[in-house]
């Protein structure tokens, strides 16, 4: 296990787990914060894991996640905008 893998592991435990906790409690808008955090930390985890495995061709995955995470969260904000 090299340093990059350890860093990715720490990011998953310390970043994704809190994001999942946030995404599981509160009302819909409160849970949206968890989704945003998971998306952001997920991109960073992928970048570090790609460096750890030495496969730069996978870099398209975090790039697409960053773009789709943005669009997806904006869709949620749009749908949650009006009170039901």
């Amino acid at each position, binding site marked *: 296990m090299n340093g990059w893998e350890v860093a990715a592991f720490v990011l998953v435990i*310390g*970043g994704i787990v*809190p994001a999942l906790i946030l995404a599981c409690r509160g009302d819909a*808008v409160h849970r949206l*914060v968890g989704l945003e955090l998971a998306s952001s930390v997920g991109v960073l985890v992928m970048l*570090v894991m790609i*460096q750890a495995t030495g496969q*730069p061709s996978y870099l398209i995955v975090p790039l697409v996640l*960053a773009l789709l995470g943005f669009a997806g969260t904006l869709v949620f904000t749009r749908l949650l905008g009006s009170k039901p």
Partner: protein
Amino acid sequence: MILLWIGVVIAVAAAIGAVVTKDFYRRLHFLTPVTSLAGPVIGLALAIVNGWSLTTLLILLTIVILGVTGPVLSAATGRVAAQRDELE
């Protein structure tokens, strides 16, 4: 490697801070360090390791997209919450 660990510590501290904070509007502030501080620092660490190459360009592009879209999402989420709380 130092830059990588600085970025990891910032991201983890922000995530834990977001969980611990009870107030929603205060919690929103904890998203910004992940995209605007931890992202660029980790990206810089990766760029230094890889040198000038297409890999570095793609990493920096991803980090820039993350840095630009993060505050927009925080603002959009805050606005929706304010509308639902009838603050605006």
